[in-house]
């Protein structure tokens, strides 16, 4: 009898756990379904390629797409090299010691700093102190700092997958540390590091709080050419969604446009994340 009770408990218990997982999947499915079904209705060529018109009640979101693209690029160009070099130091050069412990602690803490605090920091440092003003550069650098812990961690993961024997073989032949890293470690780790940077790109594209005070604009349809654009204010997809959802004077009228913006944003992010997963998958298969 007692045996049976235990069995029933196990049966119910496992169902409870399965139910937890199902709820989470249901939440995600609902979010995606809601945004895709309502967002699809406004998505067309015009929505993707035109500027907003008539107080943002008509037209498209092209400037926001361009803005999000450029801040993300600036952030990745800034954070990926530093992230890679830091990972190389931590994984290849560093021996256990005080400095390493402090660096690792700093990285862990940075990954926990709230995005709005990065926003304030970027505002005080880049916008005001360095006098970059409200611009793509200020915002991009702020986002770069925010994504730095992620790029470091991803790069380190990539370096760890390279077998120790590759390094030992090179050093046994008399190669120096840097020669070993250059010829026997990096070529195998770069695809994995790429994954990290794509993930960083996806994260930077979705963040709103860090760009609030550093350069994003309510309405900025002017799109100058490449270098000039970096010093100007910009529109961004997440901020555009925030404006359409909360700050617009005709909030019900622009709701479909908000759904469209949300759909474009999550599509971009899911595409980038899938690309990262795909690169990682290919890479693992190759070196196993």
């Amino acid at each position, binding site marked *: 009898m007692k045996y049976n009770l*235990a069995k029933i408990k*196990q049966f119910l*218990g*496992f169902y409870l*756990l399965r*139910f*937890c*997982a199902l*709820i*989470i999947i249901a*939440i*995600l499915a609902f*979010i995606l379904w*809601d*945004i895709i079904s309502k967002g699809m209705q406004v998505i067309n060529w015009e929505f993707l390629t035109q500027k907003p018109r008539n107080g943002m009640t008509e037209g498209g979101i092209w400037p926001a797409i361009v803005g999000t693209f450029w801040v993300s690029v600036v952030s990745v160009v800034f954070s990926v090299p530093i992230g890679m*070099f*830091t990972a190389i*130091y931590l994984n*290849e*050069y560093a021996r256990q010691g005080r*400095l390493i412990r*402090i*660096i690792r602690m*700093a*990285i*862990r*803490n*940075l990954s*926990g*700093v*709230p*995005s*709005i*605090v*990065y*926003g*304030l*920091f970027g505002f*005080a*440092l880049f916008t*005001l102190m360095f006098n970059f003003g409200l611009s793509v550069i200020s915002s991009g650098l702020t986002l770069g*700092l925010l994504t730095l*812990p992620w790029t*470091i961690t991803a790069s380190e993961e990539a370096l760890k997958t390279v077998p120790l024997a590759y390094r030992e073989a090179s050093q046994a032949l008399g190669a*120096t*540390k*840097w020669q070993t890293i250059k010829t026997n470690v990096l070529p195998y780790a770069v695809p994995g590091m790429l994954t990290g940077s794509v993930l960083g790109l996806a994260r930077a594209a*979705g*963040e709103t*709080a860090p760009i*609030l*005070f550093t350069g994003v604009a309510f309405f900025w349809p002017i799109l100058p050419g490449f270098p000039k654009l970096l010093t100007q204010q910009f529109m961004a997809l*997440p901020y555009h*969604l*925030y404006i359409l*959802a909360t700050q617009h004077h005709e909030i019900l009228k622009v*709701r479909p446009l908000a759904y469209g913006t949300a759909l474009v*944003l*999550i599509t971009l992010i*899911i595409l980038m994340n899938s690309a990262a997963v795909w690169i990682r998958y290919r890479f693992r298969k190759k070196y196993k």
Partner: protein
Amino acid sequence: MTDKKKQKVVIRLFKEKIIEKFFQANGIFSIIVLLGIFSLLLIEGWPAIKELGIAEFLFNPKWNPTSFVKESYGILSMVVSTLMVTIGAMIIAVPLGIGCAAYLSDVASRKTREIVKPIIEILAGIPSVVIGFLGIIIVGPFLAKLLHTSNGLNAINGSLLLAIMSLPTIISISEDAITSVPKVYKEVSYALGANKWQTLLKVTIPAAMSGVIASVMLGMGRAIGETMTVLMACGNAPAFPESIKSSVRPITSTIAIEMGETVQGGLHYSSLFVVAFVLFFMTFLVNLVSDIVLNKYQKVKR
């Protein structure tokens, strides 16, 4: 060895040293950024602390820096709002997250796990502004109907959304912790006649406890620092929250709303940096606790 060869070796070694220093400098950059954030918040916040005193921030019950009669700078109402929304989120997310983690590590088949894990990664990737948007459009009206309030933008709404945002963190780290419990522990339990469920409850989860606690702390840190969701879904009334049904304005929302309206160098500007410092400190503490717990757990495992 000839002199020329010797010279070559010396140059080589010198080059190596410089390359190492270059990588080291990049590592140190992270420390500089963390110290930079810490000190810049202090420097910019210092004028307000000097002029108003810490007591004004901590004990004045009201936050109203733009009042025409008498400005007040009490941060208590927003700290309470942040804690309220965060604790609410944890009440929802902790059982769900740990349940899901236990399911993935001990119940699900390998194939299910390979499908569910990417799904959770997708959830982690959804931007906070999108979650906040759905909070306004879907959760809000639903709560308004349920609670008979004029709108559903309140602390409960924020808690629900923050629960969704912190779930991926809790699940992935808990799952790692539960999976890395040594197999021997379970086998001993089975050998004593316990079934899988009893083993999970009485052996595996307790053994993974520190990792699970760390995951909860990290999820909590994420909820405390989350800006856009609470800004959009909590209603933003700057008063002291009366109940979980009232509209609240957590620390992050206050900074997001007011920073744009301040005059640079003014008292309001400076006081917002004090507020940000408090937020920074709160998340720092939460992360520190998770760090300590996780370290302990790694030592036990060895």
